[in-house]
């Protein structure tokens, strides 16, 4: 088949936009429902994120003029498209293509939404947006070191930067260490509770999103959902055992993703928000050492072999 058509199909149909958007809404619902159940509530109905999206699409937005207004409209679209691109790279089906280095591209695309959030908060001109953006920037400097080191340790121990190859190779103890480090970083990446500083609604309204309304806000919600799918999908890719049958691979992938979403939501509802300096200390002092050890061990094992 034509590689262009294949990659377009991956980006737009499976596992890209057409399948990823319902998955994003489903993950958002699971998160809210799990938090509600943990608090002894019933929680939102199944279609809630979908209704929220449709409703936001029908709302008006305040007039935005000049370059700042143009930028403010552009950031959520960039965030959504990069998150959708990241989802499109996930090797859900075995032997679905991919190339050497697509892991690096996935990481870059996964990082873009948080860059957009930082830029959006600063271009909105709201003081709460600026505080939120500054927090997001500090947070991303803290967790990204650990996140990237964890990925690096996995890639170094398996000697490949291709997602497809990583999904097929049998796992080693070092890989599990890397996956554990990834899991520690996910709450910060997805702005979940112990590290939900950028959008701390009791302190700084909605952080970078304060000035956003209507369809733009709908795009931010969607990009958040797609980030969920991409980040959880990345971990699920690394965790899932390699199987030959396509449908079984998809089932295992969905089951593992669901389990990770549940785990993250339960952690989010069981914890309170940490202060920014506590968060930075957590990543730089407590977690970084293990990530460095994992990379060192991976490199040592590789050069010995």
């Amino acid at each position, binding site marked *: 088949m034509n590689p262009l058509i294949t990659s377009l199909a991956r980006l737009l149909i499976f596992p890209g936009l057409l399948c990823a958007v319902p998955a994003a809404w489903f993950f958002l619902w699971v998160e809210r429902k799990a938090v509600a159940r943990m608090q002894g509530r019933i929680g939102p109905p199944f279609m*809630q994120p979908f209704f929220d999206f449709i409703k936001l699409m029908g709302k008006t937005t305040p007039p935005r003029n000049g370059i700042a207004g143009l930028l403010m409209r552009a950031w959520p679209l960039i965030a959504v498209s990069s998150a959708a691109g990241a989802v499109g790279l996930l090797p859900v089906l075995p032997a679905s293509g991919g190339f050497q280095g697509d892991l690096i591209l996935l990481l870059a695309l996964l990082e873009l939404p948080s860059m957009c959030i930082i830029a959006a908060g600063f271009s909105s*001109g709201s003081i709460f947006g600026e505080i939120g953006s500054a927090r997001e920037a500090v947070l991303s400097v803290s967790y990204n070191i650990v996140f990237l080191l964890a990925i690096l340790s996995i890639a170094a121990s398996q000697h490949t930067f291709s997602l497809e190859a990583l999904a097929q190779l049998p796992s080693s103890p070092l890989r599990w260490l890397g996956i554990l480090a990834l899991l520690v970083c996910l709450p910060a990446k997805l702005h979940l509770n112990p590290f939900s500083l950028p959008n701390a609604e009791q302190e700084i309204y909605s952080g970078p999103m304060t000035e956003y309304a209507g369809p733009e806000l709908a795009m931010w919600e969607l990009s958040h959902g797609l980030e969920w799918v991409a980040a959880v999908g990345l971990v699920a890719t690394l965790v899932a055992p390699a199987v030959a049958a396509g449908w079984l691979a998809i089932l295992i992938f969905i089951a593992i993703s669901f389990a990770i979403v549940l785990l993250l939501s339960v952690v989010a509802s069981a914890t309170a928000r940490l202060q920014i300096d506590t968060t930075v200390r957590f990543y730089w002092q407590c977690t970084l050492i293990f990530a460095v050890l994992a990379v060192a061990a991976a490199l040592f094992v590789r050069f010995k072999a």
Partner: protein
Amino acid sequence: MKLWNKLMCYSRQHSPWLFHMNSGSCNGCDIEIVASLSPRYDAEQLGVRLEGSPRHADILLVTGPVTHNAAAAIRTVYGQVCGPKAVVAIGSCPATTNVFIESRTLEGPLDKHIPVDVFVPGCPPRPDAIILGVAKAAEILAARGNKLPEESVMVPIADSACCKDGCACEAKKESEVKTEGVQA
């Protein structure tokens, strides 16, 4: 197109996001609003979400008898909520200024400043009554949503000036605004 309108109507009714504004309330009603989101009453079943920014909200919950200081702020915040929007007055204070009636520190009741869709009387009202009020406001919002093109003045949050001579409020007052009472 018709299907889209129907879907929009249904979504508006099932996803009311709230912004809570205190206009000099004694904190009694505010506690009851929070109680309506608590495990016992759980308003999130109706899709309710308490939002941090008025920009995200559909329904403005106002408590308190509107003091001098709060009057301009209320008009500002009303201008910041993006349309279609509805206002719910929580408690007896915004409806009648309650026991503070004829006080010289007040500029209440609330409907002198912004159009109110639903009044939830009580001092304070029970959480069930607040949830019922929000549900009614969501119904009103869904019913008039597409028909009413809202020409409201948008004020940035960073800007603390009140909405330009209250034109948004006057324009909406002329178009008929359905007002309903909710019995506690």
